[in-house]
């Protein structure tokens, strides 16, 4: 029989406000196995922990139940406390009477009743707890960064700087991401390429960094410290180690009608291409969807002009398998599709463009060589209307837009408006906004300059309709401050489309077993205190895959994620979780259900001789769990038909005892 102590925490008024803590302590005192029960204002405080330690010694406790906040907050604290008093840390159970009780109930009576039930369940479990001893697992000292935008680049550089090898997997032919497409950056107006490309070169030259461009993560197995990852290196039909990046093939290729995705389809590239001049790796890629040679077997011009002999039409996708200790998700963002926003006529007129397209139109390496010209007729636009929050903060249009604020649009629109007025003072610039949000260092000053120095017309109100009429765009909008309808004859309309996580993020999250929110942004382990870690151990978050961010924020988060990775890789061993599965060989049928559902590949089978009835023996196939690989998820225990699989610390009998205690 256990000797259990119950410790009910007030958490100031957090718990005591809606739960009668004294009544809870009193009620739990008469539960089976309980020999001591008390309450205190802050159990997690030094004094609170002393109460627990003293009670363990004085009452010779063998188990401890703390009725307090979520185990995610203080389970570790109380386990350490128990350990300091000589108790096995796994003899401690937390009944969460804060997040799951006091915070969600308003009525003292209901709250108290529920707290007693939760405490009772924890007591029932501790009655069946057994001491557990953690083991150790080694750490593979290499990191994987998924995504080669500015977030991935910064994370990789920082990890490599600390002396650990890093691999970047980038699905496009070059690293650089969205930042490579941007012209100038707010609020300093540095040229994006000028600050980004040196970093790209650093990545290429760093001995600790390998770049897998035009590649995708295909499979992730294992766990913190020991991930086993399969990377699919897509066939680019050019030998990466031979190609010099001279670009002759990209000039000679006869297939000229391929929409250039780097310029968002506003001009064309060839079937063999290098996305932009400063691409890293500077290696050509053949687009199999357009290459005549690959489609029909006739052409082969690029191979003829290539002096290095780098073209290889027979190249196949390649699978690379590698071990990693830590994985950083840096999968980035995309503007949302505007197909459903008919009111802005995006699909009807070439002169309605997104802000990212505007970046390319004003970029010296863009389709117009940096001259702001209308896509339809190549004429200089004299009236430009910028529309903010297209699909952002759109609670009412959740079917096509996003409820959240995309955060970067106010600032880049101010930048666009300001630069346009600076370069083309004869242009009238209107910006329609719901609110202008400029929190950030030197951000508001920047926006004020756009309004005050550059004379941009900021109008509070939304655009109702854009209709193309002749070569003009009729913009119908409301001015909420003047309370009147506006009709503007515009030459160009620029839409600040909301941003959303890259589509690949969901499948990557699934592979990593990392959680996501309803918008497919990766969830952090704690929004304030662990903002760059995923709740999945060994998985870290960098950049906009976690939420909308501008470049400075992305870079700081990227470095923060790197610091966390370095902290992990610096360790030689990790303490493993002793709550792992084990099979009762006498009951195991060897059916493989558990191995089929195990996400970590921790279960294998052995043939073993067993005594059978009537002095016979039989060789039977039975499951065997590798405790170093098992992560204690418990999937096997529910898949096992015979109940042979069980999980230390979460045994079926313990769970059922909890349920029984709740239903009593």
């Amino acid at each position: 029989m256990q000797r259990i102590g119950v410790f009910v925490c007030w958490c100031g008024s957090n718990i005591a406000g809606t739960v009668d803590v004294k009544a809870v302590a009193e009620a739990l005192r008469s539960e089976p196995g309980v020999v001591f029960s008390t309450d205190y204002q802050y159990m997690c405080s030094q004094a609170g922990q002393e109460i627990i330690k003293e009670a363990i010694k004085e009452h010779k406790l063998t188990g401890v139940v703390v009725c307090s906040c979520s185990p995610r907050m203080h389970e570790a604290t109380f386990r350490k406390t128990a350990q300091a008093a000589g108790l096995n840390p796994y003899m401690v159970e937390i009944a969460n009477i804060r997040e799951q009780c006091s915070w969600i109930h308003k009525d003292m009576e209901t709250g108290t009743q529920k707290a007693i039930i939760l405490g009772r369940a924890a007591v029932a479990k501790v009655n069946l707890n057994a001491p557990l001893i953690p083991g150790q697992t080694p750490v593979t000292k290499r990191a994987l960064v998924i995504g080669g935008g500015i977030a991935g680049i910064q994370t990789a550089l920082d990890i490599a700087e600390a002396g650990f090898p890093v691999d970047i997997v980038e699905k496009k032919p070059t690293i650089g991401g969205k930042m490579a497409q941007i012209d100038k950056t707010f609020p300093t107006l540095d040229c994006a390429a000028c600050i980004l490309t040196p970093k790209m070169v650093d990545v290429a030259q760093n001995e600790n960094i390998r770049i897998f461009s035009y590649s995708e993560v295909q499979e992730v197995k294992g766990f913190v410290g020991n991930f086993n990852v399969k990377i699919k290196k897509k066939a680019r039909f050019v030998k990466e180690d031979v190609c010099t990046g001279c670009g002759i093939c990209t000039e000679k290729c006869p297939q000229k009608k391929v929409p250039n995705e780097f310029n968002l389809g506003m001009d064309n590239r060839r079937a063999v291409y290098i996305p932009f001049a400063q691409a890293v790796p500077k290696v050509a890629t053949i687009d199999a969807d357009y290459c005549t040679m690959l489609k029909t077997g006739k052409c082969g011009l690029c191979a003829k002009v290539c002096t290095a002999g780098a073209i290889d039409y027979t190249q196949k996708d390649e699978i690379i398998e590698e071990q990693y200790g830590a994985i950083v998700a840096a999968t980035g963002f995309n503007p949302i599709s505007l197909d459903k926003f008919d009111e802005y006529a995006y699909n009807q007129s070439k002169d309605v463009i997104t802000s990212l397209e505007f970046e390319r139109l004003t970029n010296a390496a863009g389709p117009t060589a940096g001259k702001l010209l209308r896509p339809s007729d190549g004429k200089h636009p004299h009236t430009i209307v910028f529309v903010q929050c297209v699909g952002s903060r759109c609670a009412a249009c959740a079917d096509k837009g996003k409820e959240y604020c995309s955060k970067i649009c106010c600032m880049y629109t101010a930048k666009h408006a300001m630069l346009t007025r600076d370069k083309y003072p004869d242009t009238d610039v209107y910006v329609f906004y719901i609110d202008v949000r400029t929190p950030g260092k030197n951000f508001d000053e920047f926006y004020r300059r756009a309004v005050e120095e550059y004379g941009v017309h900021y109008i509070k109100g939304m655009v109702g309709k854009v209709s193309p009429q002749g070569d003009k765009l009729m913009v119908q909008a409301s001015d909420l401050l003047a309370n009147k309808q506006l009709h503007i004859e515009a030459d160009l309309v620029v839409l600040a489309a909301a941003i959303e996580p890259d589509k690949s993020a969901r499948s990557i999250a699934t592979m990593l077993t990392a959680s996501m929110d309803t918008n497919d942004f990766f969830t952090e382990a704690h929004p304030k205190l662990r903002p760059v870690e995923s709740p999945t151990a060994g998985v870290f978050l960098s950049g906009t895959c976690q939420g909308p961010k501008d470049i400075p924020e992305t870079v700081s988060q990227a470095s923060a994620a790197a610091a966390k990775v370095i902290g992990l890789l610096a360790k030689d061993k990790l303490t493993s979780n002793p709550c792992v599965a084990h099979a009762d060989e006498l009951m195991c049928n060897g059916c493989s259900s558990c191995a089929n559902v195990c996400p970590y590949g921790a279960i294998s089978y052995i043939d073993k001789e067993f005594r059978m009835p009537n002095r016979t023996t039989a060789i039977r196939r039975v499951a065997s769990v590798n405790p170093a690989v098992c992560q204690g998820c418990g999937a096997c225990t529910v898949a096992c038909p015979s109940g042979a699989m069980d999980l230390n610390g979460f045994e079926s009998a313990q769970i059922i005892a909890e349920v029984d205690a709740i239903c009593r």
Partner: protein
Amino acid sequence: MQKITRENLINKAIELLDNGTVSRVLGWKIGEFAYDVTPAVFTTKEDLQKDFIFDDFCNANFSKYLIAETRKAEEKVLVFLKPCDTYSFNQLLTEHRFSREKVYAVGIPCEGMLDIGKIKALAGEGIIDVIPGEGSITVKNLYEEEKTLAYGDVLTERCLSCKSKKHVVYDELMGEEGDVIDSNRFDEVEKIEKMSADERFAFWQSQLSKCIRCNACRDICPACTCEKCVFDNPKSSVNNKAISDSFEEKMFHIIRAFHVAGRCTDCGECSRVCPQGIPLHLLNRKFIKDINSFYGDYQAGQEEGSRAPLINYTFDDLEPGEAVGRGV
């Protein structure tokens, strides 16, 4: 097509015993009554000629017997498998329950087996012989009466909604290969799905309360092959859920249906052996129907080594919430 007879099977068995392919034969043995056929292991020509039987009452699915039988000796055992038995055979191979190398499987055709319960209901007690005819059977009783019954009226429930006449696995096939049948086996399930929750509860309550916990359904089930059943294991915490009161008694069948979900081949043995006539196969069929509609058609045992949807994961699997929403 030449009909496969008892003699054909005996000759095949003797041939395989004589040439040393197998050392034992798993077959049907004649019982006290004509309809009272039992599974048995034969090792000699004499025993085979004396007791081996093959008629319309050879219902028993031998697949499960192979687990114990293959453990007894190193030599191969001969087993006769009807089409539906081959699905159970494959499923057990998928679950590594016996070694394929220790079995010589002979596929035999099946035109449907008879249900003695139905015959007795129509022809009364005291039956001493059942003589098969064209599309009908003749029943003789103690009182020297004869009664002719239509075949369709006395077929077992599972044969009426037969899913396949095709053998999915064998070493040798006797007779001709049949086809997978587009059966109407889910009609009955749909009928129950259409009931209101209260009606459905009342239906199952009336059925399951007949249960006497004889465990026949579990003992015959080719999916219930655990070394130690959770219901016999006091440590499993499940056994006491199914014994303490009359409601929990019903939980036995519900828990069992969950245990075989995704592994049940719909062989129908559970309902066939139930002495109380509970349509247990409908519980399993409901699972099969739901699995099909949630994850795409899947037939357990059709392919050796196939990953059942419930122990597999694909990116386009439906979210648990969707399943709840669609559940009836």
